[in-house]
């Protein structure tokens, strides 16, 4: 069974540009989460989808970040326009529903560098 995949693995963009990160969850996982780790800091929750609906987006830093999950399958996280402080590693995770939803499976992350 394929795990959570993320694309790209690395992205280097200039301040003001737009970047879109993609996450493909494990097949059948209704829950999808985005997290971010800024260098030297802890991994922080950004938002949570249940199927195509946003269950909790309390961790989104500001309105330059837009997450979508059309059709309840893969998800994208767009940063527009990117700022220097957006640099970090963006993780995606997925899980089943019910009690098993606590077992979140993480992807390898996308390292975003904004110059």
């Amino acid at each position, binding site marked *: 069974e394929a795990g959570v995949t993320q694309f790209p693995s690395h992205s280097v963009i200039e301040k003001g540009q737009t970047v879109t990160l993609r996450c493909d969850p494990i097949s059948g996982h209704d*829950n999808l989460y985005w997290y971010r780790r800024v260098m030297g800091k802890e*991994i922080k929750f950004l938002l*949570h989808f249940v199927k195509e609906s946003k269950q909790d987006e309390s961790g989104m830093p500001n309105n330059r970040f837009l997450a979508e999950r059309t059709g309840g399958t893969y998800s994208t996280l767009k940063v527009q326009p990117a700022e220097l402080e957006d640099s970090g590693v963006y993780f995606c995770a997925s899980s089943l529903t019910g009690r098993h*939803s606590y077992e979140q499976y993480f992807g390898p992350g996308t390292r975003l560098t904004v110059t």
Partner: protein
Amino acid sequence: AQSVTQPDIHITVSEGASLELRCNYSYGATPYLFWYVQSPGQGLQLLLKYFSGDTLVQGIKGFEAEFKRSQSSFNLRKPSVHWSDAAEYFCAVGLAYSGGGADGLTFGKGTHLIIQP
């Protein structure tokens, strides 16, 4: 708001020696507790979890953790470390959402484990 503290940023252990990584959490109720490991170039892998019941939980790769409610701690242990255990370890807590499933996890800052030959 809940928080997770991993007081040790780096820990160096000799191969074959025992290991204990500390984790304390702050929350009014007992959350769900997790330890994840991240090896270089890899995603986070779940080592073990505590939901309820027996306070000593066994995980993969020979790791175990003990939940101590009185100390709000969930320390990770391994009796004998191997060079392949060198990685970054994260303690995390989770809460339920109204739909009956898990919301986003709250992580500690992580502990880098260095193994000396």
